[in-house]
């Protein structure tokens, strides 16, 4: 283990978006992060900065975080222009400071999209993603009375495909990365998860139509094939699910 790196601390310059509220003007502020080691996570680095700010009597930087292990999907920061910082399959909470050099400048911004109003600093309102799910991201299976779980075998390939889509953590990086602010990857992943399973067939047409309508009503843009969403996705959700979404939509019109 690189025990020596504990002594090799780094100092970084942070240029952070501060905004007091949804309708307040925002601006960049500069801070210094001191005594950062390779083992600090990105959010632990911000914790250190915040502790210093509080002790100086200043307002700490507001950012969403919870699990800090890349699964709850709540953390949401654009680091140096890229959602989650642009390391493959890595959320910003899983980003580690060994990836940065002493003296680096780091720009930190919130998700920016029409459908995600800023609440404060780096915290945004992603309620629109919940509304897309509410529009149809489920099977209408009532609690109770379900057939035995092995009653319908599902080809392994389909189950795996469904799981590939279901891995989405709903963080919204796809939207933040998209020049159109589209939520096609998010919506496509949920539609595809069910489209691949027998349980999802009954309501397939209704599901895709309702979810797409909600998506538009929420103010998300449309896909024009930039593939930035896939690049930004910390779970590696594949753009093929957008193609599937389009196919399912066409099928629903038949």
């Amino acid at each position: 283990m690189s025990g020596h790196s504990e002594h090799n601390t780094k100092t970084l310059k942070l240029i952070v978006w501060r905004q007091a509220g949804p309708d307040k003007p925002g601006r960049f502020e500069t801070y210094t992060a001191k005594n950062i080691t390779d083992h600090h996570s990105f959010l632990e680095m911000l914790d250190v900065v915040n502790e210093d700010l509080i002790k100086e009597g200043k307002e700490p930087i507001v950012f969403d975080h919870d699990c800090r292990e890349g699964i709850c999907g709540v953390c949401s920061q654009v680091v140096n222009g890229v959602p989650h910082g642009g390391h493959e399959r890595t959320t910003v909470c899983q980003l580690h400071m060994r990836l940065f050099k002493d003296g680096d400048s780091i720009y930190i911004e919130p998700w920016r999209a029409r459908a995600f109003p800023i609440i404060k600093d780096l915290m945004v309102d992603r309620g629109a993603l919940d509304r897309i799910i509410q529009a149809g991201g489920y099977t209408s299976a009532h609690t109770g009375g379900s057939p035995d779980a092995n009653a319908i075998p599902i080809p392994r390939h389909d189950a795996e495909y469904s799981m590939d889509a279901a891995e989405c953590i709903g963080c919204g990086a796809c939207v933040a990365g998209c020049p159109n602010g589209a939520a096609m990857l998010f919506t496509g992943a949920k539609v595809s998860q069910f489209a691949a399973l027998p349980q999802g067939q009954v309501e397939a047409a209704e599901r895709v139509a309702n979810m797409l309508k909600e998506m538009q009503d929420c103010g998300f843009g449309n896909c024009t094939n930039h593939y930035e969403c896939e690049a930004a996705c910390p779970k590696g959700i594949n753009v093929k699910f957008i193609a599937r979404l389009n196919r399912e939509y066409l099928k629903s019109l038949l």
Partner: protein
Amino acid sequence: MILDGKCPTGPVEKSWDKHRFDMKLVNPANKRKYKILVVGTGLAGASAAASLGELGYNVEAFCYQDSPRRAHSIAAQGGINAAKNYPNDGDSILRLYYDTIKGGDFRSREQDVWRLAQVSNEIIDQCVAQGVPFARDYAGYLDNRSFGGAQVSRTFYARGQTGQQLLLGAYSALSRQIRLKTVKMFPRTEMLDLVLVDGEAKGITIRDLVTGEIRVHAGDAVLLCTGGYANVFNLSTNARGCSVTAIWKAYRKGAFFANPCYTQIHPTCIPQAGDYQSKLTLMSESLRNDGRIWVPKNKGEKRAANDIPEDDRDYYLERKYPSFGNLAPRDISSRAAKEACDDGRGVGPGGKGVYLDFRDSIKRLGEHVIRERYGNLFEMYERITGEDGYKVPMRIYPASHYAMGGLWVDYNLMSNIPGLFVLGEANFSVHGANRLGASALMQGLADGYFVIPYTVAPYLAASKPGKAKEDHPECKKSIEDVKAFTKKLLSINGKETPADFMRKLGNVTWNNVGMGRSKESLTEALAKIPGIREEFWKNLKVSGTELEVNQQLENAGRTIDFIEFADLLCRDALNRDESCGAHFRVEHQFADGEAKRDDANFSYVAAWGFKGDGVPPELHKEPLEFNLIKPAVRSYK
């Protein structure tokens, strides 16, 4: 007071069926007149809110995250148990019941455990119907793996993200009810008080975490599904926001807190790297299926792991527990790791780690198989440590993980406060002194999908809907209390942040009440905690104001609740002068270091009642009875 769990009488195997028949029902046309407040939307809360909404109740659900999909259940990796016996390896409801009772070291309530085992199979059916993409074999049938404390393969899983997939299933059922307007969802909302009207739970006081508004929601029953308190150790595998706050506030209003000292330490976590650390990351226990745990035989070993020859390695779990080996239960594995490290044979920085080595299984099965089974865990490990687990053994160390204790509930999941129900990790009932892997997800969903929809009815059927409204004097008083409390937190203007106090508290709890406890360590902790509390109220620093997003204010509130709760945790641990399951009193062990139970004196649930600040809590006991199997020394050799 002697507490009564009000369990059905008669044969245990028939208890749930009998009870379901005996319970009163609420007329379908009347259901919508009852408002049920569900606090928490993890597996327990989301499944409860969705199922109650489906039944036609008027539900309001609350969570502190920005979406119900992010509850900490999302982080569960390994899997969920059920007694399906699909692999034909001898499983049954009886065996799942037996393993759970034994795993809990005969400190859980028998009938509750039976019910859990009985409904386990329905959970899997339900999840598959929801479109949860569980792992399958090449014939298209569901796949199973084994987990600690069981000799059968009964764990269903979805890659390394089982909790995520189960929660998304419950979340989608909840979302459907939100769309149908049977459930109203309040995210970014934190419960800060329980409102009692004539001694019954009729409302909650919340703070809107965006606007800072403090208001009451009145209802006919309150369900607390607010998760566990493992963060009382400061560093744990729980999310940063997980707190004891909701159940602590209920305790302060009279709900009994049962077995707070039963806390679980998970053996396979990534070791701590520094003081600034904000959380510890769990590596799923499922890794123990294929990884072998060892430390060097020699103290102060300097060679790199791969240079240490076979003869100089001590595979201590395989050596001490040949029949369970690397799959020995969590408490046993954790203590064994601590022992090895205390013996000077730990690895990594500070000697606080043991190896989890995949070399042999990679040789046997090929790297691709290991990658397929655990790829995401290896990735996670590398991201955090910068090391490649396929090439060098992983380093792991135990960390606080789960709370078996929680609010006391009867068989209907109702606390001693009428109308207050407690589900999931927040209650105490089924895991006894130690929870087996893959059983928490099972419990959360059992409580929410298949227990509470029935057991809430007898209470509601006997009470008039809409008894309390938001303008009731008790509601107004609660709002004033919470506002005053908030103001107090903001007014101290001292020098230390909530994080500073959590670190101080964590030092005491982890060192004195962690993996091993003694009369001495507990007495010392009980002497130190009041000092931390006093300093908190003198020297806390919270920036910002009340009517805005204020994460420091949130942290401060949770911190003081943890400080107060830690005192109860120590008292309970001191009172329980025996070792059982994860509660290890060093005074009580067999020659080989195994926990030594004292059934003659401690075969009871310890439920504590709040008596006022600065006044010792009152101990109530619920005696435990075992009819189907008789308590025996728990042996995993």
